[in-house]
């Protein structure tokens, strides 16, 4: 937080991350990341060719890298985030560093100290896990973590209620550059064919609306979020005679980030990265408890 370098987390932006909640890791330690690298890379190889034994420590087709991301901490009590990456070593370009990123995933906890306190020794709380890449690799890496650290992964869906919070909160955030529109996507239930309604609002209009709704800057209440969304709904109804409140909010896109109810997120602004992660950590913790 203090000396966060946006450069070091820039690679997390503009990618789709699938969200998971993770129960506390048992006997995990940052001091052993090197050993984990060796074990996980052999495990990935063994999983890929089920039934064949793999020697640990030799160079394999898929390279595993563990690293720590100290920039993603909300407070000093937070555990440093852990990044896991899988690279494909292409045999042709072995000499000229021909490594292709296959999959990445990271564990983090931003301001999750309420959850991590009072845990007995040996538990590491990194309740939020985000992945980018093929699900088969997520399954392999996830199983290894589950087997090794006795933890459990679960997809983290985002409820429409939480999506509307995100829409309101992120609309209120200041961004320097020119801002894309606030876009809300709704799906209409119980129709023979799926019907999605996309509702885009000019960012300045949305910001102006939110500013009239929000009473105390820096503080958001459920009531304010409801008023904000109701205003948007009634505006839409005036034009199209459709009650959006009867549809399900499935996706929110703002200048800060975009979030889908299936538990997929894309970060767009590095200055708000920890803020978004704080909210997601909270959601992950509530799913575990």
């Amino acid at each position, binding site marked *: 937080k203090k000396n966060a370098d946006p450069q070091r987390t820039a690679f997390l932006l503009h990618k789709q991350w699938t969200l998971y909640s993770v129960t506390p890791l*048992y006997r995990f330690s940052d001091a052993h990341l090197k050993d984990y690298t060796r074990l996980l890379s052999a495990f990935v190889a063994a999983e890929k060719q089920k039934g064949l*034994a793999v020697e*640990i420590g030799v160079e394999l087709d898929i390279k595993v890298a563990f690293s720590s991301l100290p920039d993603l901490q909300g407070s000093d009590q937070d555990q440093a985030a852990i990044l896991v990456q899988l690279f494909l070593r292409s045999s042709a370009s072995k000499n000229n560093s021909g490594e292709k990123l296959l999959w990445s995933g990271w564990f983090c906890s931003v301001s999750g100290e309420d959850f991590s306190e009072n845990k*007995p020794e040996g538990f590491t709380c990194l309740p939020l896990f985000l992945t980018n890449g093929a699900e088969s690799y997520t399954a392999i890496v*996830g199983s290894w973590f589950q*087997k090794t650290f006795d933890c*459990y992964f679960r997809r983290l869906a985002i409820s429409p209620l939480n999506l509307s919070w995100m829409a309101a909160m992120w609309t209120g955030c200041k961004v320097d550059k020119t801002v894309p529109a606030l876009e809300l996507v709704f799906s209409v239930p119980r129709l023979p064919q799926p019907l999605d309604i996309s509702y885009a609002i000019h960012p300045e209009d949305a910001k102006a609306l939110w500013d009239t709704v929000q009473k105390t800057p820096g503080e958001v209440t459920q009531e304010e979020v409801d008023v904000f969304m109701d205003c948007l709904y009634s505006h839409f109804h005036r034009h199209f005679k459709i009650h959006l409140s009867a549809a399900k909010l499935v996706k929110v896109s703002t200048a800060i980030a975009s979030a889908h109810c299936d538990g997929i997120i894309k970060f767009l602004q590095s200055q708000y990265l920890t803020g978004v992660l704080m909210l997601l950590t909270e959601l992950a913790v509530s799913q575990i408890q």
Partner: protein
Amino acid sequence: MQRRESSKTKQIRQVLHENQTDLSAYLKRTTEPGKHVQNNQSSHGQTNDSLQDSLEHALSYFEKIQGSVSLKKSSILQKHLTTVESIALQRGLPPEAFGVLLKVSLSGRLADTVNTRLLKSLIPALVIPEASVVLAISLLCVGKCSGNVQVLFLRWLITVFDFLDRKKEIHALYGFFFSFLQDDKMCPFVCHLLYLITRKENVKPFRVRRLLDLQSKMGMQPHLQALLSLYRLYCPELVTIVLPGNRKAFFKNPEGPWKAAINAIKQSKQENSPVPLPLSLGMAQPRSRKRKWNTQLTIPATSANQVNFKENRGKCFGLSSTNETFPVEQLKTFSQLLRNIHRLEFPSQMGSVLTNPLLLHYINCMKDESVHLRLYYWMGHILQEECSWYVADKQQHEEFKDFLETVYRSECFLQEGFSSCEEFLYKSLPVWDGFCCRSQILRLVSWIPLNSFSEMKSHVYDPLAQLFFTSSLYFKCSVIESLKELLQNWLIWHASHLESELDPPVHSLNTTLCGLVDKVAELVHFVGWISTIGLHMEDNSSFFLYFILDFYETVCDMYLLHNLPLLILPPAGVFYPALLSMDSVNLNQLCYIMYRYRTNLVAAKENEQSKKKILQFKFSSQTYQEYNQYITAMVGCLWTSSAFQKDTHPQGLGMDDELLKTTTVQEYKHSFNIVHHPAMMGYAVLFVKQAWPDDKTFNFSLIKGKKWNWYLEYLYAQGLNGLKVFIESSVSRVSQASHSKA
């Protein structure tokens, strides 16, 4: 192999059958039970001694045999070979025979047919000296015998491995065995043998590499997989392997011709064969179907922590010898658990303890908070993920049912409920349809802990009551039964924690005695309430009443049996239906319960009088009063025929004489005494029949005076023990009086 084995036994049976006609053989078998006789020659009157002699002759012959002797030409060889074979099959060979016979059969001096026959007859009677096997291995290294004989020898060694008197030197020969791996024919059997003798110190990087080379040469071979998995078990930092889920066995059955013979000899000695350790490497349970990652309901297999970094920090994965932990995969027996309890480590996935009773024992005696937390997260995860009540998938439903069953069994084993399971019940009972996984859910209810802070009424009682009133009789009975179990579990928990009063954290805020008493009282009142309404709804079904009274059998003894200062009488809505029940079982049960209430109340009164000051709890006079009302009604009903006059309970039987007269029932006063009570009348009829066989009028009024006492004796003899203890305790004086009156 299986087929060959059975044909062998068939053969033996046939031989036996043929011998059945031979009187001497038959006699011999009956005097020496179980001795299997191979051929007629040896059975003809040969005694033990002469058998012994001929074996000695044969052995000394084989010891001295020189050069190549042809079986066809040498009748002496034929004779001795047959002797060895028949004795081996009959009773097994003595330890001293193995050195001689192994030496001759592996030295390549005789033809392979003879070697094979000799090896096949190496059936141990007791033990096999290790030295003889070491000698055999050195001959194997010389390589004079054919490949077939080598393989046969290895198969033999694997089969009889547990008969070796010692294994120290065999272990020392690990490297020799390992070198045999290069022989393609022997490789599967060498792997099996290595699997039997590998220890942690044998697992070395160069051996791992060698096995991996073999793997790349031969591809995926089950025997290599097994050995490599064992290596991974000992040294997870050197090698790893993921076994395909569908593998059932790693090794082909090597038992060959020996196993059947060994078993036959064992049986003839009437020994209990020690259960062989099954080879299991914690193979993944076969997954029934493909689902999204991490949504399968699988209880993880027991496996050790992959790498314990704490132990060898600084060192490069050193082979620490003394502080070595015992791999949980190898934990198979209780005695192993006892021997290794100090160096046992929990499995890497705590959920696996549910299917491992030995580990459940272990966690029972470990006071480690992390164990419970790990279990809590895992179980919470599964229960949340899988709890979809209206799943259409039948198989998924079955799996969930089995899982709940496993959880319940573990709770019974640990005598303790899991907190994640408790939370699951609180969350799901309000939305439960009362049908899905019914018996599992209701059984889990019985393990909700007494010391939990949660509100039982809103979480458990209210949703259960809703289902109770809208469901079948059977469901009602199940609910009452599981609440009885719940009460019993609470009482046992309370009694055992009372004994270990020294444990101060137990009686924290909410679990003070007062809190416990209130919680138990709440449960008993709840059951009283639903029982009253339930009996109305079910027309006082005696089946249902049985479950309710069963519950009260626990309630009436809470004070004496479980040291809980609480007694609650059943509500009138339960008491009167039981008293007027049509079924003698219910009535008898009620009598027993009232007798126990009396015993408890008397004990409480005595305690109160003897040590007034220490008692913080006292039964209210209302309890005594209520009891007295009930007892008056019961005695009036069953004994003094004065129920209608004396019952003062507002919901009781007290009735105006005028009103009773309008019923036009004659002798209404007697209607519910032990002769006329609808539940007892059957006994009365039988008694009258026996006492006055000629009387066809069933004149019950004959049962009085001395006959009344006889009738009582008759009832007691019919197993109405509840009635007996009740009458003896509550109406003994009256009985004396009536007796003297008569």
